[in-house]
């Protein structure tokens, strides 16, 4: 699946950014879950969406990842994801 993971991603000082904007459902869900389930992933993931990813939240809980909404923005919805303590 690694060659097929939807969306774009890049590493920045604040963590791994995953941009899912413009993707049809359920690709944003698949993209974020693929990144957080990689074995080496334990730092923050900043996920960019063009709509509220309500369907992602139960899946994060199942995997023990917490989320925090970023400041409201007219262009995107941003979530910061971390492994739950």
């Amino acid at each position, binding site marked *: *699946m690694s060659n*097929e993971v*939807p969306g774009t991603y890049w590493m920045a000082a604040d963590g791994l950014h995953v941009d899912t904007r413009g*993707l*049809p*459902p*359920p*690709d944003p*869900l*698949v993209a974020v*879950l*693929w990144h957080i*389930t990689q074995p080496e992933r334990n730092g923050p993931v900043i996920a960019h969406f063009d*709509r*509220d990813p*309500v*369907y992602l*939240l*139960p*899946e*994060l*809980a*199942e995997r*023990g*990842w*917490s*989320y*925090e*909404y970023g400041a*409201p923005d007219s262009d995107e*919805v941003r979530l910061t994801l971390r492994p*739950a303590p």
Partner: protein
Amino acid sequence: MSMAGRFLGGAQDRLLPAAIPFRFFVTAAVFHLLAWMVLLLAADEVAGFRGGTGPVLAAIHLLTLGTLAMTAIGASLQLFPVVTRRALTRNWPGHFSYALMLPGVALLSWGMALHQTTAMQLGAGLTCCGLLVFVALTANNLRRASSIPVVAAHGWLALATLFVAALLGVLMIWGIELNILSNRSGLAITHLTLASYGFMGSLILGLSLVLIPMFVLSRSLPPNPGWAQLGLTALALLVFSISFVSEFPGLIWLALIAGFGGTGFYLWQMAKILRSSMRKRLGLPFVLMRASWGFLILTLLLVTAYLAGLAIPNAVSLIGFVLLAGWLLTFLCGVLQRIMPFLASMHAAGKSGLPPLLSDLTAEGPLMLHAVCHFSAVTLCGIGIVADQSLLIRIGSALGVVGAAGFATFAIIVALKVRQGPRTS
């Protein structure tokens, strides 16, 4: 509105108030129980049923309108705004549709069971008004769709076939009193076909393109097979309806070929999604959904055998039963047991933190009971219809009642957990 929704503001929030979908889902679970109960009482009449008012027709409508349509409406109101990326403009029509449908279906079924024409007319009127509100609300949402046009197009086909099926239903009820219908059986079969393969089938085929990848965590599909599936399904429904209403049976073979084609494209896409699933364990919901796909193929094979002149005892009853209880009911029970805890978890989510685990929001014992009883009920009733054995149908229906009670227990448990309200975080 969820905490997340309030935080983000209404424009981006496409999560309906929990009361709207859950009201439809819990009611569907209760009508499901009633449908099996009425079938149990009418077990002697099931195998030889060829239409006409009575408890078997009431059981059919408790299942189709009470269970299948209620589930479809609740799910559509929640899911189409996600697919179209357009929030519903207002919430009150969802409540209003429910307020019309609930007494409408109850009155219609009661009138059918007791041969009460006035009750049927009033019930049909209320039900049709409720369906019309749903059609208007969904059409307004689909009209503004900006995402996944192939799924939205399935929605349009579903609404169009629902409209015609409801019209034919009303015509048949009024025709009882006025005695104006010369081709009643042709109209009844067209009504059933448009309501089941048309309305329910189009919704299932369309929403599966988004729901199944979401459930199993697989990428979205390319649109072309979805368009082929839609085109063949629409062709099958159109040609089938013309062949029955015009009493020109030769066309039905063309409809069947198109129906097999549409089903083939659908199942090929579902298999492709399952092959690329990121989720290791799909669980009980997918046992039901996979079985329902088998029942879908079985209905088409039974119709083919019947039309080819093979001597299948009580073929009409058997086809109707496998279609409604086998394919549609099994699929929707699978979807509901996956989506209800999912929606409950989303509604409980705060602006940060962890929402409740899905495993804390479900009820595995009642769902296992339902699955075992449901499959036993469908098998026993199916054999009972072919063998013309009322006892088998009675035992099957009794198991159906137990299974439906298990499913209703699950639905009520999830709904009560939603009513506890969102977590604050």
